[in-house]
């Protein structure tokens, strides 16, 4: 079998798994992880119950035939714990999620929080904490390659990441203090908004830029090699102040929802500040490693990052993303992207309904 065919099969499998998990999560919540990964051995209890009921019925004592009476006589069955099921499913799920996220051109964090939050019996606090760590670990590993190829630019990232970092602390604090239903409503609205932004945002390959005074003062400029032509492309930015203000808002949302913020970083860098699309995408990933670090610390200090949830998710996402990048060159991701956006909208609506108690 040709390697291309194998790669295509892996991608289809990843997409299928993603579809099944997401559909299940949106339809039936946590049905795949019944009773929080606890298996109850029911047979001995049934036997005891039947014996008690038989004795009670023979004795003419009606009340003993009720389950309440059974509970008072027979100690509840000791559950057989399968604690490893949840981290194992998280690992497998995030592995496939990583492949699909790359194909769809969205960050792992933005898919992780709404889908895992809806699918796994884990409080949204821990999901957001793990979501930040997932986005952070992906950014840390992608960062060096992007910086070396000059697809990410340090001079562009440092000022905007500083603005986003400061507000991300505030966002994380607010997110951990607000009542759960308010978080769900805000998260649902944000996810639907993000899906629309991803759907509608059209990047400009190389926007026309008239360098402004702050950009000139900070010397935010650079060059990269366009691989298709081999030419060196020089670039500059403008509208730095509006860009910084936008990053304050982006940082707040990243901290509050633990989403990562690639969906917002790219349009802000490309459409507002005028960075070339490739530099905007690369720098956006790198900015995540800084913004999410600050927000992650708030979650770490507040006990909202549990290794049992975060580590399998980070490992799964990192491995999935690496394979996803290799598959990307051989796939046509437009349809995948549209379907993933569809799922984001439905996941967002589900969070909204949860928030309203519907």
């Amino acid at each position, binding site marked *: 079998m040709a390697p291309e065919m194998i790669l295509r099969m892996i991608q289809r499998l990843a997409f299928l798994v993603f579809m099944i998990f997401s559909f299940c999560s949106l339809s039936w919540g946590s049905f795949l992880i019944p009773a*929080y*990964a606890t298996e109850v051995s029911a047979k001995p209890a049934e036997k005891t119950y039947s014996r008690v009921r038989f004795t009670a019925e023979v004795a003419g004592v009606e009340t003993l035939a009720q389950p309440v009476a059974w509970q008072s006589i027979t100690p509840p069955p000791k*559950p057989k*714990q399968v*604690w490893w099921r*949840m*981290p194992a499913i998280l690992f497998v799920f995030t592995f496939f999620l990583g492949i699909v996220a790359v194909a769809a051109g969205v960050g792992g964090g933005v898919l992780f929080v709404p889908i895992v939050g809806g699918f796994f*019996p*884990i*409080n949204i606090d*821990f999901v957001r*904490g793990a979501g930040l*760590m997932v986005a*952070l*670990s992906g950014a*840390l*590993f992608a*960062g*060096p390659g992007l*910086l*070396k190829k*000059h697809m990410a630019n*340090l*001079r562009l990232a*440092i*000022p905007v*990441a*500083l603005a986003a*970092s400061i507000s991300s*602390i505030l966002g*994380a*604090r607010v997110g*951990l203090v607000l009542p*759960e239903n308010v978080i769900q409503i805000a998260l649902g609205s944000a996810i639907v908004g993000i899906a629309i932004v991803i759907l509608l945002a059209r990047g400009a390959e190389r926007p026309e830029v008239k360098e402004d005074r702050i950009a000139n*003062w*900070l010397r935010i*400029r*650079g*060059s990269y090699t366009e691989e298709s032509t081999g030419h060196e492309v*020089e670039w500059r930015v403008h509208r730095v102040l509006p860009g910084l203000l936008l990053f304050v808002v982006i940082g707040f949302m990243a901290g509050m929802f633990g989403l990562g913020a690639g969906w917002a970083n790219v349009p802000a860098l490309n459409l507002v500040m005028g960075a070339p699309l490739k530099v905007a995408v690369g720098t956006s990933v790198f900015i995540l*490693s*800084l913004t999410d*670090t*600050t927000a*992650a*610390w*708030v979650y*770490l*200090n*507040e*006990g909202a*990052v*549990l*290794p*049992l*949830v*975060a*580590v399998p998710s*980070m490992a799964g996402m*990192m491995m999935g993303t690496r394979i996803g990048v290799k598959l990307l060159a051989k796939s046509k991701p437009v349809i995948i992207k549209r379907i993933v956006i569809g799922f984001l909208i439905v996941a967002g609506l589900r969070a909204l309904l949860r928030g309203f108690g519907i």
Partner: protein
Amino acid sequence: MKKYREQNEIQNAYAEGLSLFSNIGFIFLIGTFFLFVSGWLPVRIPFSQYAHLLPLRAGEFLEKTGSPRGWEWLGMLKYGDMLSFAGVVFLASISFFTYLWILTKLIKTKDYIYAVLVSVQIVIFVLAATGAVSGGH
């Protein structure tokens, strides 16, 4: 390009540092998690309890389990779950280390504007990590 040589040198130095720390961090993360789940070390919270604790909010979880806040976990590294937490903490500290790494280079090249921006970011990292702004203590 020659005119961006200085900028590229600092960027490459940052990339080298990031790559080094990320790889160490990933090995440490997986190693400590393996020690945690393998059962070689005692755990503070029995695995069987997670099923009932995970649906709780973070504050309730801490209260019920008596888990440490802020940096109190440092005194509990004999437990597998706390050691695994150290792996996560290391990964969250990488940007701090790499920023320290390039601060010296920025000062050496007399790029004082960026040295100040990087210093402020380092202060933000420290404030977040110590819990001074995150309410960890």
